[in-house]
């Protein structure tokens, strides 16, 4: 590598030697930073010796922040390759030190100029020099410590210790950084051990976790352990090392106990770790801890049950976890199929509107919605129904807004069909008056070229695009089919829309008599009839023929025979729907015509994979594998008894699929989904039993905070698109993340702030009826507040189905045991623990 330069070329590694007290912790006053001494286990080295023989003295290495025992770690640059006039210099760059590159043509004192100055990022340093042809160049590299926050610790030291170089009170602790570092460096390591995740389960290998923590000391510390207990190492759980290291600058090391499935039916077993004597530390009183490995011959793990319930409901509760553990997952699903429907409309109907001071208004829907979200006997159906309401959308931002009863009737219809058959679901959706006014197919009449009248095409388009087959042809596994030009193939064209629009003609008020022409428009209802009742009974079909008056352009009135349902043949998705033969009219032609069109959509090859994938995205993961979609779609195609569209089979296929159920999927960084922000709030409410004294939930007007609330999507396209890709790593990986479409710099603040106000104050206010104010119940958590590890383990199960990362747990532990927190009230500390858990990124994502 050494090539002789074509001209003189000198490198000086000039270390600006600071005063030993400058921005440096040096309690032993040997001129070498105590932090550096601890970091490299180099306490007390002779300053002028060169322990690793790399040409730099130990003192120089301490100033440069390099390793005195590693000759490759040195500031003095090595000359790298030469290419023409270009040279590379290689050196070791330490974090947060300031480097200055000087140059001079002749070494005269006044000739040095700064060429570049930068702060070290810990990268391998490469300096490329492009030298002039003729004259010599001298360069020199300087390193200097910086103390950005002026707290007496250099930025390098702060970085090593995990402090923030920009503030003298890192982590906003009341203790000054220098004092904190000096206290640590100056004290003896005291080590304790706790079981922070005290159970694991043979059938759900989320590990049990011991945390070994030290106080005092910053150096790397080897801890010696003895392993005892009834479980056998290597056969009941994966082998662990008898010596573990707390790294330099850290205070914790975790020992994870990963259970091994042994096919034995045995009692629960324990693993006990005891701290043994070692150098550089003393064990505290808390020198042993135990965890339990639960045998998988009994019920499933609570963690597994909680994770399942996170997908299958609005959020786990202790009672539901117990239920699932008792019945098993499939057994619980079967049980849910048989639960009565938690209906919403009746709750609204039972309200005394006079006493209420008027109503029902649109917002009152949420009162019923919350009551069922919290208390319904059929939480799985409630979750499914909500998912369907985001696929077959009606919304407050359209005409149905004026009929909250009708909208809840629609929602209840979705619930009723959640465990029925998709074919009935799509029919009930089609005939619901709220859909009729939302996508305006109600009152559609056949085209009349003379009048220039055409049936409205909204519903015809959206039922295909959004409710059944989607825009592009799909393989049975939901992947796009492409043509020989590698182009996606559209499922339908404009002619399909116009034909299908002609099918959705003749539908109108359920309260009308379909034998009477004008009741298509004006049903003859009794005096005093509540016209809002129009929106709670399914639309009916007016076929005809009817005699209709019409006015000639001359003004002359005349009559003619008309049909309100289009009698001609239609072709929808290459399926011919027959005309109604006037000579032999079909009974119930109009209804059957619609039925045949719906059959066509129902039987289309896309419908299974399209609907399956949407439902998987709502419940389990944003990016299901084609195999997963394929398995669910095949359950849609055939429930095992030859029935297509069985929603029970679909629900089971989704929730019992290995890609939903297996523990290992959550280790795939591409797996998971953001829990919808509003549903995150609901799950918190369920976890902490949010309630009012009266049992009434007045939880209204949160759309601005969450970017969503049930039944209020800005359009039929839902709050977010199933194909949305946030820019960044998700998009770069070719993945979608629908819920991120409503995650922005406004909701990024307002969502956690609403969590905050709900936790610290209350969920709803009512000056007139204080017994309607909704509060969380934190009594169980407050009772645990003095055992931080127990509280966190409880929150882990309750909110994170046992998947709380060690880092999050340790952050919460650190936070709750800070001196400025331990002196706060139990309530404050409990709220802090809960708020930090529910506002954590880990809680936002289901994986």
């Amino acid at each position, binding site marked *: 590598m050494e090539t002789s330069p074509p001209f003189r070329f000198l490198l000086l590694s000039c270390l600006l030697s600071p005063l030993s007290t400058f921005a440096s912790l040096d309690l032993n006053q040997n001129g070498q930073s105590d932090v550096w001494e601890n970091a490299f286990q180099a306490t007390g080295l002779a300053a002028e010796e060169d322990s690793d023989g790399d040409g730099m003295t130990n003192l120089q290495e301490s100033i440069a922040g390099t390793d005195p025992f590693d000759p490759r770690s040195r500031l003095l640059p090595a000359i790298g390759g030469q290419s023409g006039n270009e040279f590379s210099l290689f050196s070791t760059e330490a974090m947060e030190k300031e480097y200055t590159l000087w140059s001079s043509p002749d070494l005269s004192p006044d000739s040095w100029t700064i060429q570049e100055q930068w702060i070290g990022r810990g990268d391998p340093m490469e300096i490329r020099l492009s030298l002039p042809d003729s004259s010599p160049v001298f360069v020199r590299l300087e390193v200097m410590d910086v103390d950005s926050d002026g707290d007496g610790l250099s930025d390098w030291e702060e970085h090593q210790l995990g402090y923030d170089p920009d503030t003298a009170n890192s982590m906003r602790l009341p203790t000054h950084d220098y004092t904190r570092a000096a206290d640590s460096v100056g004290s003896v390591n005291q080590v304790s051990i706790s079981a922070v995740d005290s159970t694991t389960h043979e059938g759900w290998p989320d590990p049990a976790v011991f945390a070994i923590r030290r106080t005092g000391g910053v150096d790397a510390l080897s801890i010696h352990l003895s392993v005892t207990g009834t479980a056998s190492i290597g056969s009941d759980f994966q082998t662990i090392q008898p010596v573990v290291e707390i790294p330099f600058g850290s205070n914790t090391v975790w020992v994870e106990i990963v259970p091994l499935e042994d096919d034995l039916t045995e009692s629960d077993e324990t693993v006990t770790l005891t701290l043994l004597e070692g150098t550089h530390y003393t064990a505290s009183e808390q020198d042993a801890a135990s965890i339990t490995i639960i045998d998988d011959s009994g019920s499933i793990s609570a963690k597994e049950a909680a994770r399942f319930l996170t997908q299958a409901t609005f959020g786990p509760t202790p009672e539901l976890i117990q239920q699932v553990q008792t019945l098993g997952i499939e057994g619980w699903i079967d049980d849910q199929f048989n639960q009565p429907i938690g209906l919403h409309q009746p709750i609204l109907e039972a309200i005394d509107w006079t006493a209420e001071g*008027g109503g029902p*208004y649109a917002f009152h829907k949420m009162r019923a919605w919350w009551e069922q979200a919290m208390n319904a006997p059929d939480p799985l159906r409630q979750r499914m129904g909500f998912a369907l309401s985001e696929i077959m959308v009606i919304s*407050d*931002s*359209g*005409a149905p807004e*004026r009929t909250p009863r009708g909208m809840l009737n629609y929602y209840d219809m979705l619930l009723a069909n959640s465990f029925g058959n998709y074919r009935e679901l799509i029919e009930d959706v089609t005939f619901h008056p709220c859909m*009729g*006014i939302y996508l*305006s197919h*109600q*009152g*559609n*009449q056949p085209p009349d070229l003379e*009048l*220039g*009248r055409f049936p*409205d095409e909204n519903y015809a388009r959206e039922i295909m695009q959004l409710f059944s087959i989607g825009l592009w042809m799909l393989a049975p596994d939901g992947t796009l089919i492409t043509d020989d030009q590698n182009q996606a193939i559209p499922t339908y064209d404009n002619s399909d829309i116009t034909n299908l629009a002609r099918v959705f003609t003749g539908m*109108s008020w359920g309260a009308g008599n379909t034998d009477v*022409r*004008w009741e298509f*428009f*004006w*049903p*003859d*209802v009794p*005096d*005093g009839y509540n*016209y809002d009742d129009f929106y709670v009974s399914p639309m009916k079909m007016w076929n005809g023929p009817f005699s209709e*008056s*019409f*006015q000639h352009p001359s003004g002359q*009135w005349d009559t003619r025979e008309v049909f309100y349902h289009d009698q001609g043949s239609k072709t929808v998705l290459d399926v011919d729907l027959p005309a109604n033969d006037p000579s032999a009219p079909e009974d119930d032609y109009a209804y059957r015509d619609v039925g045949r069109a719906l059959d066509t959509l129902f039987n289309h090859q896309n419908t299974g994979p399209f609907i399956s994938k949407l439902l998987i995205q709502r419940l389990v993961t944003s990016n299901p594998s084609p195999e997963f979609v394929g398995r669910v779609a095949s359950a849609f195609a055939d429930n095992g008894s030859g029935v297509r569209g069985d929603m029970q089979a679909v629900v089971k296929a989704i929730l019992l699929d290995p890609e939903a159920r297996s523990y290992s999927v959550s280790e795939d960084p591409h797996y998971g989904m953001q829990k919808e922000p509003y549903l995150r709030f609901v799950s918190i409410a369920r976890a902490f039993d949010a309630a009012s004294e009266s049992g009434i939930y007045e939880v209204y007007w949160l*759309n*601005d905070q969450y*970017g969503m609330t049930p039944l*209020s999507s*800005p*359009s039929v396209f839902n709050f977010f698109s199933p194909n949305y890709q946030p820019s960044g790593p998700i998009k770069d990986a070719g993945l979608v993340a629908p819920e991120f479409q*409503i995650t*922005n710099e*406004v*909701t990024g603040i307002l969502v956690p702030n609403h969590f905050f106000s709900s936790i610290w104050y209350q969920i709803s206010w009512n000056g007139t009826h204080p017994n309607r104010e909704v509060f969380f119940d934190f009594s169980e958590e407050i009772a645990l507040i003095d055992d931080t590890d127990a509280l966190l383990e409880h929150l882990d199960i309750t909110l994170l189905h046992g998947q709380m990362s060690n880092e999050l747990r340790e952050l919460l532990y650190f936070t709750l045991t800070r001196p400025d927190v331990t002196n706060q009230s139990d309530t404050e500390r409990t709220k802090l623990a809960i708020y930090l858990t529910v506002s954590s990124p880990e809680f936002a994502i289901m994986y």
Partner: protein
Amino acid sequence: MKHSLWIAVAIVALIAGVWFYDTRHTAPPAPEPTRRLKPPPPSFYDPSEPDPRNPTSPLARTLNRPDHSAQRDLEIVYTLLFQTRQFVKDLPSRPLGTNAEFTAVLTGDNSLQLAAIPPNHPAVNESGELTDRWGTPFLFHPVSSSETTLRSAGPDQQLFTDDDLVYPEE
């Protein structure tokens, strides 16, 4: 977030609504006692005169009938307009501001020639305006192309006084 439209509607509803309904309380005192009220014309429909050509809403026939409340009249007009919008799909492209313009649509001047209210309904005055039971034209307040709120001047036949009736009530 694409809920701006919803917000806009809400803002309008709020602004318009708050103002529209609250002015009752800030309105000037009732007219001078010397003012003579116009005698209310018979403004409810006599079922002995059915329209042979184009049956209209039975609801319309009950408009302004004395056996129900005046508030119900507003609900009837509101409902008829809402229903008409379900059928006359091109109504948003039709400029609708004045009472007469709304009444024209309600009485069959629309692309379907669909009449919710018979054109010869006694509540339709000689200016083609739909009147309340006291003979004063309703005030149609267009909130959006799919929502129109209503106000009746009430027994004093003066808009924006304490005895006005509005629909929907909020």
